[in-house]
């Protein structure tokens, strides 16, 4: 039982009287019973607000999200697909020292991943030196043999990376996965901040929180840096698959914030390996595409499919160096969960140093010994498909039925390369409003890393929270919500 040591005066309400943090690392209380220093102010603020005021704030916040149209789409359900992203009022707070360490670790990681991609599509030295098996790389469904030998603009493949961090029962930060294709969520981070500044204006100001508002500017700078044309202001566009995509809100939001056009495939045309956008005043040449579309859908004539989402001839423009893409093509190898297991080795190989951030031990089912272990210990592991995102298609052993385990066991035996297993990490929890009281809910953190002329990370990231009791899955598509993340100034 956590007890609030804040001096309780006549009007103060102890909101943590029945709060329990047993068995988990709690963001506010750590492993103890007293709110950590960096949570003191928020703690006392919470005890000053009355129940009705709190409820009003909660309602205001909810209606703000509705007004702003902050939604996402859920696949695989028949009911209305567009949903409001649930938001929790209690911010997650990260002290500046802690953030500096995370930041350094993320910078190190994106540098290594980017070197890895440059390497595997060029001389493959890391493979030749026996650090990573060739099969691992080339069997990844996102490996693009077409990219071999191609010089990506400025040697950068991953311009935008969203790495998911979790904390274990001791509070250690661990990298859970890297999203090196089209990571989403940054619009919620920005919207959450806007709303929190209105909901807790004084607390926000008093706690001197690092701002995040620069993100759209930094993103635009990153895109413009890639422009193949040296003169004039580069023309950047955001390419969206359209309104049915789960992150369509984010696409429109970012395009608006950056002041660039949002386009679909049908708005673009290629002429002699240059790319143009149709506008009301004629064709305009495009230099950089921020694409929120997977590799496969970018160019139907190149990737041989009947998708109408992309632009025929786009890949030729790209390979001739007439248009740049962010992220580059073939980055999915880097966020393959089998590749993930080798990231510490990459850091040692390219950078000659040890990883700053640890990661979750990973069993690769294509290795015979690992597979045997996994099949014998399914109930104690999380089984994840190597190349799915959004928390789809995974099995959490401890809360699975016998039938589910048997099903996964068959799938693993049939296609071992497609599955990895990890020990179940008891994610840290954070005080969260649940039906009028405050309870601990599991959280993760997705910071967004931008790699252009320099590497930039807006302080913090998107804190996702599993709203269902005891759930370990924080993905928005699986009923997760979010919180604002406050990194304190040093």
């Amino acid at each position, binding site marked *: 039982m956590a007890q609030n040591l804040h001096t309780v005066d006549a009007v103060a309400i102890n909101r943590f009287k029945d709060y329990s943090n047993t068995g988990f690392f709690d963001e506010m209380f750590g492993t103890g019973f007293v709110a950590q220093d960096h949570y003191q102010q928020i703690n006392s603020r919470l005890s000053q607000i009355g129940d009705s005021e709190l409820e009003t704030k909660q309602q205001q916040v909810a209606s703000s999200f509705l007004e702003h149209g902050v939604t996402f789409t859920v696949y695989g359900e028949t009911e209305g697909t567009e949903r409001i992203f649930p938001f929790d009022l209690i911010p997650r707070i990260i002290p500046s020292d802690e953030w500096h360490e995370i930041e350094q670790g993320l910078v190190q990681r994106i*540098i290594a991943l980017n070197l890895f991609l440059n390497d595997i599509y060029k001389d493959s*030295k890391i493979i030749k030196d026996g650090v990573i098996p060739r099969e691992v790389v080339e069997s990844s469904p996102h490996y693009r043999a077409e990219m071999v030998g191609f010089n990506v603009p400025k040697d950068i493949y991953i311009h935008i990376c969203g790495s998911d961090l979790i904390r274990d029962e001791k509070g250690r930060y661990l990298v859970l996965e890297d999203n090196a294709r089209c990571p989403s969520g940054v619009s919620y981070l920005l919207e959450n901040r806007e709303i929190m500044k209105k909901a807790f204006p004084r607390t926000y100001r008093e706690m001197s929180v690092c701002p995040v508002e620069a993100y759209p500017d930094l993103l635009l700078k990153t895109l413009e840096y890639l422009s193949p044309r040296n003169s004039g202001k580069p023309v950047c566009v955001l390419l969206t698959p359209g309104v049915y995509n789960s992150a369509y809100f984010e696409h429109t939001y970012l395009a608006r914030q950056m002041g660039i056009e949002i386009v679909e495939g049908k708005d673009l045309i290629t002429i002699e390996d240059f790319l143009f956008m149709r506008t009301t005043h004629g064709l305009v040449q495009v230099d950089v595409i921020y694409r929120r579309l997977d590799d496969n859908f970018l160019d139907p004539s190149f990737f041989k499919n009947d998708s109408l989402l992309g632009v025929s001839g786009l890949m030729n423009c790209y390979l001739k160096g007439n248009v740049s893409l962010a992220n580059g093509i073939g980055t999915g190898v880097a966020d393959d969960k089998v590749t993930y297991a080798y990231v510490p080795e990459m850091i040692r*190989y390219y950078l000659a140093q040890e990883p*700053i951030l640890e990661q979750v031990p990973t069993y690769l089912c294509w290795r015979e010994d690992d597979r045997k272990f996994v099949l014998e210990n399914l109930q104690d592991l999380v089984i994840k498909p190597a190349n799915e995102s959004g928390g789809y298609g995974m099995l959490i052993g401890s809360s699975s039925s016998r039938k589910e385990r048997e099903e996964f066991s068959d799938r693993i035996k049939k296609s071992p390369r497609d599955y990895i297993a990890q020990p179940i990490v008891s994610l840290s929890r954070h005080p969260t409003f649940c039906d009028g009281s405050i309870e601990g809910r599991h959280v993760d953190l997705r910071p967004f890393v931008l790699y252009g002329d320099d590497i930039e990370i807006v302080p913090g990231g998107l804190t996702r929270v599993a709203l269902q009791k005891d759930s370990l899955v924080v993905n928005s598509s699986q009923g997760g919500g979010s919180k604002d993340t406050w990194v304190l100034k*040093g």
Partner: protein
Amino acid sequence: MRLYVLHKTHYSYPSPVRNSCNELRLSPLSNDWQKCITCFVSVFPTTKTRQYLDLNGNLVHYFEIPEDHSHLTIESRSTTTTSKRVDFGNFPYGVPMRSLKEVESSPEARPYLQSSHFVDITPEIWRQAVEIQGDSKDVFQTAYQIMEFVYLNYEYCVSTTSVDTHVSEVLKKRKGVCQDFAHAVIALCRCLGIPARYVSGYFYDSSRDQIMRGGGASHAWVEVLVNGHGWFGLDPTNNRVVDETYVLIGSGRDYRDVAPVTGNYFGKLPDKMEVSVNVRRID
């Protein structure tokens, strides 16, 4: 002070080169007054890198690229915290010149009193040094006067010298960049028996209009040993005693010991070399 440095070096060769072996000295040191938090050195074309300490205790990144390549890019990103290094109201005055005899043969001072690759000790330089010294009998005072003399009488100019310019030419022309200014001060100090070493690094230009010279590139300055007080940094390019706005990569007898990038390869000389250095304060 927390300082972030992004240092990019890019070479383009007119035709592909091969068998490139390189040593990089781009990683700040940790010592009593600065701590290198992280330093990430990346190389394109990608390759395995290794780290080791050289004879002077500087951190070296080493790599080889045997394959044909027509570009080489080296990026170093470092974060360093620096703390107050000197007390500007209390410089180490009071150590007499005659006491220099005592340190002459100590292992700490000896290497920095001899001639080295770019720095000679000659009667001509000695005569100049004695003139600058005037009637100063104090070690720090003399070193300071030498720095000031070079700052005031040498012209800062980018294209008259190269990385291979010897100090004798610098003293004749009285022109050059930070490297040349540093070599001149080192030569003049050594002639008078003041141990002087060459330092490579960066500085953060906190002046309002960014008026300091030598920004946008890697910087160099001098450290002199004041017996009993340790090494003191003097920046003759900007006429300043080195403080916490400077980030030190390493030190040696002269430029040759701490050149940021050295190596060799088979092929033609680069037809283009671009260097950019960006120092940001992040606290």
